[in-house]
């Protein structure tokens, strides 16, 4: 039907106006946008990292390592509980996937299984029902096996990822001013995007340090013992061998006196002798432990271990009771600041490593945008001219008007949805310019055909629009299916392409079928042509 009710005309005009209003901020510069009245939208299209420059990293979280630690904890828990009940165990071990062990006396097996069963608690605290943490099985007469349940593993992964994200955020953006994206990706990865990042190496360094700090008492070993430890890897029980930054070996008590978890805060400072240090304050628990250790061991050395490296081992001169202290090492002012930042952010629960990195320089990004704009302008001009040539000034104008609105609506859609325009996205828009006129071509060809078949103008236009609907819808829905598949399977920039393509398809159907028809109808009402200028 070529007839449009007044209501419909108002609705269509409104839709187009809204489109223009939402697309408009993209044409203004930043200053002009800020001076817009509050009720006007001022969002512009987000540029992807490939266009505005910045760093994109996909980080793999070493979940296996976390699992091992969790199982070690569970294992010592089991050991302690069994020992409490005077049940002797042998060959207790874990391999990262399960804990296995044997009970010494077969008659104690029943009691042991009871104790082990009690170790399996609900995954989510404060819930009675729901999934438990461990699957407890008896193996043979005296053996047992504890396997973490799927839910437990899932929960550990989630917690690890969440904690890592929190720590990363405060490490990379301590002031909270950078516009960065940091989100879980899959079940063991983190996506990190920092637009306009300048110092990518710095970011990488902050990601890769786990910042596990602990304080251990140093065992004053003689040269012979140190030599044996280094060369043969032999240390006395409950002790560990660690090296300083300069390669000096230390034998430390395995159990830390205090750990980084008990730090309240830290900041870079300067020693009274002028060199950089890192000041720290413990929380209450840490302060008590630190005070007790330093008062009992005055005169011994106390090693500060950061990520497996002894960064200093000062002698304890007096008991430190206030929970305050400082670390000295071979710091520069910068490295002291870095360390205090890391300590404040806390330790990462797991090691992170970069499995994919895309850093784009701002200049290359700008160039892509410029090239894209030129290509879009020339493409648009070419298609527009061609439509005028093929369908005359009148119908060519309708098609080109529809095309113009199509572009405006794509810009509006991208701004409104907060979608990201990527380099392939630009390709999507330019491609849409070429493909969007298809609906109008279909309609115009049909109108021509119907007019040639002897229909009067109004009838030909009407029939042309009506009979073209089915093929237009079929053709566009199938393209939409391809684009949607791309969106769901693709990632990053390719998603950007899929989004622009999908918005382009929907908008092109709207502009070609409804907007162009409205203009055709308005024109026909006034001109009442005897023949069609098509």
């Amino acid at each position, binding site marked *: 039907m070529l007839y449009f009710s007044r209501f419909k005309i108002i609705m269509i005009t409104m839709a187009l106006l809204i489109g223009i209003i939402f697309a408009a901020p993209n044409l203004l510069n930043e200053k002009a946008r800020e001076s817009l009245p509050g009720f006007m939208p001022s969002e512009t299209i987000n540029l992807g990292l490939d266009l505005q420059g910045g*760093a994109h990293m996909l980080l*793999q979280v070493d979940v*296996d390592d976390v699992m091992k630690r969790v199982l070690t904890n569970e294992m010592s828990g089991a050991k302690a509980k069994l020992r409490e009940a005077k049940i002797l165990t042998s060959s207790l071990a874990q391999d990262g996937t399960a804990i296995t062990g044997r009970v010494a006396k077969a008659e104690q097996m029943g009691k042991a299984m009871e104790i082990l069963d009690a170790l399996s608690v609900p995954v989510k605290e404060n819930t009675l029902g729901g999934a438990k943490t461990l699957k407890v099985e008896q193996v043979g007469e005296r053996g047992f096996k504890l396997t973490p349940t799927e839910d437990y593993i899932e929960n550990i992964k989630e917690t690890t990822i969440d904690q890592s994200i929190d720590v990363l955020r405060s490490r990379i953006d301590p002031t909270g001013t950078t516009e960065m994206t940091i989100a879980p990706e899959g079940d063991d990865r983190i996506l990190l995007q920092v637009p306009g990042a*300048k110092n*990518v190496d710095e970011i*990488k360094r902050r990601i890769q340090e786990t910042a596990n700090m602990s304080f251990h008492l140093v065992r004053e070993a003689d040269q012979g013992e140190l030599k044996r430890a280094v060369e043969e890897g032999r240390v006395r029980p409950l002790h560990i061998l660690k090296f300083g930054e300069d390669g000096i070996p230390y034998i430390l008590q395995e159990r830390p006196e205090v750990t980084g978890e008990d730090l309240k805060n830290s900041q870079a400072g300067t020693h009274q002798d002028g060199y950089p240090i890192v000041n720290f304050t413990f929380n209450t628990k840490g302060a008590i432990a630190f005070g007790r250790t330093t008062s009992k061991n005055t005169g011994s050395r106390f090693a500060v271990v950061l990520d497996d490296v002894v960064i200093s081992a000062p002698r304890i001169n007096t008991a430190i009771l206030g929970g305050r202290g400082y670390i000295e090492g071979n710091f520069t002012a910068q490295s002291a600041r870095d360390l205090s930042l890391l300590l404040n952010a806390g330790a990462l629960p797991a*090691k992170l*490593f*970069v*499995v*994919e*990195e895309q*850093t*784009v*320089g*701002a*200049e*290359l990004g700008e*160039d892509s945008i*410029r*090239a*894209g704009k*030129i*290509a879009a302008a020339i*493409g648009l001009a*070419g298609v527009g001219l061609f439509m005028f040539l*093929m369908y005359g*000034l*009148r119908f060519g104008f309708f098609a080109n008007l529809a095309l113009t609105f199509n572009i405006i609506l794509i810009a509006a859609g991208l701004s409104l949805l907060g979608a990201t325009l990527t*380099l*392939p996205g630009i*390709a999507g828009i*330019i*491609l849409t310019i*070429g*493909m969007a006129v*298809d609906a109008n*071509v*279909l309609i115009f*060809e049909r109108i021509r*055909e119907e007019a*040639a*078949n002897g*229909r009067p103008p109004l009838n030909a236009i009407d029939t042309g629009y009506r*009979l073209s609907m089915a*093929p237009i819808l*079929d*053709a566009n*829905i*199938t*393209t939409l299916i*391809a*684009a949607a*598949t*791309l969106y769901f*399977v*693709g*990632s990053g*920039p390719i998603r950007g392409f899929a989004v622009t393509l999908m918005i382009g398809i929907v908008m092109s159907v709207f502009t070609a079928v409804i907007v162009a028809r409205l203009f055709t109808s308005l024109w026909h009402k006034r001109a009442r042509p005897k023949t069609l*200028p098509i």
Partner: protein
Amino acid sequence: MFDISMVKVLPMKPRVPFIKMRIIAGIISIIAVLASLFLFFTEGLNYGIDFKGGSVVQFTVDEMPDLEAIRKAGNALDIGSVQVQTISLSDGDKSGVRFSYPLQDPKEPFEGSESEIALKDAALQQETLTRVQTMLETEFGIPRVKIDDEGVEQVNMSASVIGSKVSGELRTKGMIAVVASLAMVLLYIWIRFEWQFALGAVMALAHDVALTLGVFELFQIEFNLAIVAAILTIVGYSLNDTVIVYDRIRENLRKYKKMLLPDVLNLSINDTLSRTIMTSVTTLLALLSLYILGGEGLRGFSFAMIWGVFVGTYSSIFVASPLLLLLGVKRPSGEPTIETAVTA
């Protein structure tokens, strides 16, 4: 009013005997698909770093450095075959350079658990990137960070590093994307048309995908994620064409109950021919503009699309429609629809 419409350029009622050419077209298509398959197993695709892992470092310079020297210095790092190319920028005063090298394998295989190996592997790739960037910085004076016109520090050395695990996943995902979209399309056309149409359309699409891959195998053009996007868009475009023709076939089957099937097919292709040509031309206009002016990053994509427009147009006329003859279409019974009552 002044009319510049070129309606006379395209004949109003073309009657090209497309269906008669189906045997020769079929032979051409079969040979082309077989050749593409053959090339796939002999030459293979020239995968980009998205799909095989590896690294690319890109930067802009005001004055072109000695590329041969960079290549030599790169090879001296012992990081596999190094490629150094210029990239054209739309800003004529500047030039860009692209330095790429393959995924690094450890000298001796890593030991340890799966995650330990992955960790060491990632560290190796990162360490190599640092070596390359340091080499470019110290030996050729290419800054890693530049101060832009507004006085803001900006990254100058772009880098992409993709590890083996991620590239493997991307490859699988790309394959799933193509297969899944073909399956979805099959389903949609099956619902909207008859099964013969669905099968015909999907076979034509598979033909398009095969030929697009074939060109990439033949010329060894880099095959990356953007090309997979292009292939899916070609699928969409070609399908667009096919559906338009099919729609007309369905309409004409109802109209002309007595006409022989080959004639109905031929008539329908001819009916929609001017539209097919028009849309191909406008799409090609946009794509050519993109290919020539759109910058280095989109050249592969636009090349694939341009080729795809030709293949897609060809396949809707010469593959999708003749396949209906082969598959057999059920003719609707009853009286012809009255829509045709008006004749010129």
